[in-house]
């Protein structure tokens, strides 16, 4: 019975982390639904963290505040990359090539960061962030709460975008029936631009917050690609809700594994469980098999 507060703490931490992870997942899943696979998603998030780090160490700008600057920067970078590099493959439907190109792109980003910043761990964490909120027997780390709150706010905004705007509805329509959407005047190129923009925005927010909560180095990107993918595969494609819940579940699994198995096995146990789940229900836990 004395373990209850501990377990409750873990569960809450899992939820908070999971919700935060869903942010990275939802940007990625938007691309997936359009067939657009961005294997450099995690590395881009790490890039955002490094940009924020530069702003912090050179100009003393607080990481949370730097979000305002880093986000448009990342969106710009993403759109430029898309225009110069990815569009020629996307618009022809060469999705396999997009996978390999973004894979190579991630490699370039990772190694450029390593050359520029060395492989040392960095962190954006500020002293005011490192506290815990005590509510009775529960201790909630403040950074987790900040991450979750901002992530949830972004989810709300995205939800409104998808439901209330023409552009958002068009993005939902395209995966359901591409030809019909085109017959209504939707341009595939526009969809990809929006998808990339949203992806880049989530990379920026997730990257900076991640950097403030945990340590990061140039090689951290892989985990921030594999974890969101696992979350997407758990929840299933098709709606923000599914991705969010998938993320929550994965977050719980990760935190619980970390406690019961230890941090060396944490990621791997998570991957294993994800693999098992994918094995038995590839369309996602929340999708009804049609």
């Amino acid at each position, binding site marked *: 019975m004395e373990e209850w507060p501990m377990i409750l703490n873990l569960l809450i931490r899992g939820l908070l982390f999971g919700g935060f992870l869903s942010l990275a997942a939802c940007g990625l899943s938007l691309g997936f639904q359009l067939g657009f696979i961005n294997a450099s998603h995690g590395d881009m998030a790490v890039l955002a963290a490094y940009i924020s780090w530069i702003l912090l160490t050179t100009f003393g700008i607080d990481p949370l505040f730097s979000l305002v600057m880093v986000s448009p920067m990342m969106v710009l970078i993403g759109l430029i990359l898309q225009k110069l590099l990815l569009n020629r493959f996307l618009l022809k439907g060469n999705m396999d090539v997009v996978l*390999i190109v973004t894979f190579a792109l991630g490699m370039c980003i990772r190694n450029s960061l390593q050359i520029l910043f060395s492989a040392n761990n960095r962190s954006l964490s500020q002293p005011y962030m490192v506290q815990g909120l005590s509510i009775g027997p529960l201790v909630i780390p403040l950074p987790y709460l900040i991450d979750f709150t901002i992530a949830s706010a972004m989810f709300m905004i995205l939800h409104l975008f998808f439901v209330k705007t023409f552009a958002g509805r068009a993005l939902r329509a395209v995966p359901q029936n591409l030809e019909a959407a085109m017959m209504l005047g939707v341009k595939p190129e526009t969809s990809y631009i929006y998808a990339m923009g949203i992806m880049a925005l989530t990379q920026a927010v997730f990257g900076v917050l991640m950097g403030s909560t945990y340590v990061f180095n140039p090689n951290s990107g892989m985990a921030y690609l594999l974890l969101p993918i696992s979350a997407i595969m758990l929840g299933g494609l098709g709606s923000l809700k599914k991705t969010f819940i998938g993320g929550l579940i994965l977050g719980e699994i990760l935190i619980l594994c970390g406690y019961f198995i230890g941090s060396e096995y944490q990621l791997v146990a998570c991957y294993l469980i994800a693999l098992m789940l994918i094995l038995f229900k590839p369309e996602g836990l929340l999708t009804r098999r049609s």
Partner: protein
Amino acid sequence: MSHTNNKLYIGLTLLMSLLILGTFPSYSGPFLTMCAIQVFIYVAAAQMWSFLAGHLGVISLGQQAFIGMGMYTLAILNEIYKWPLSVSMILSGLAGAVIAAVVSLSFLRLRGFYFAVATILVAETLSNLFRNWTFVGASTGMRLSVGYEIPVNVIYYVACALSALSILTVYCFHSSKLGFAIRAIGCDEDAASEIGVNTFACKAYCFIVSGFITGLTGAVFTLQTMFVHPQAGFGFEWGLALVFISVIGGMGTIMGPVIGSIIYVTLRNILSGYMGLSLLLQGALCIAILTVAPEGVWGLISKYVRKRFKIPFFI
């Protein structure tokens, strides 16, 4: 592909290669021989990857799982239990095949990208497992003593034979009924399954065979380096290397991975002190080639040969 013309070219190439390669170690120093061994190893692994990705659309980013399995099987059987080398090596290949079987049966029905991710996850999982297994030296690794007893030249010929085996396997894939199925899948997978091709069985079979060969490659690799270590066997660098080699050389061709491997080994040895720069260059080159010349170096060469000499040239 026109088979009669191909046979002529392949016959000629084989003859020339046999002559050059057979005598290579005698007139090159130990360093170049080592480089050649490296090239053979990458050719062997890349042939499989390039074939899977280029012809079947099966993109696996976790081939290192088989390399590592081959490495550790050899280590366990030969080093720890002192089984004979040849048996251990064959079993290394089988270990790779078994893992490939498990992976393909479980995940091959997933969409292409999810399969790629599953392969990464499997490789990472195996890597982690072996890194924590003290029986095989955990993260410190082990030394493979048999490596010291075998002269470099012998390893050279073994590696050469391995890459020949790999090329032969790809050639066998392309022939007969399987080749027909592969071409059908390559053109349009849905249409292929509609006309009765068992696309799943076809892809799984090729994947399992590639697991065997890649496992063998892991064993030969370990023979050369004489060092067993989770990072060396299961490291992500393998995945990147195979992608780079196949893309640069030309996907789906037989000569492509050969050229790609030569380029890769040369690049790596030139930039041997600068790991980050080397990888950065690889990534950049990949992107450049995919954008400008997606057929790869060999693809460009064979296109030129076709145009200039007006012959159907498709190795």
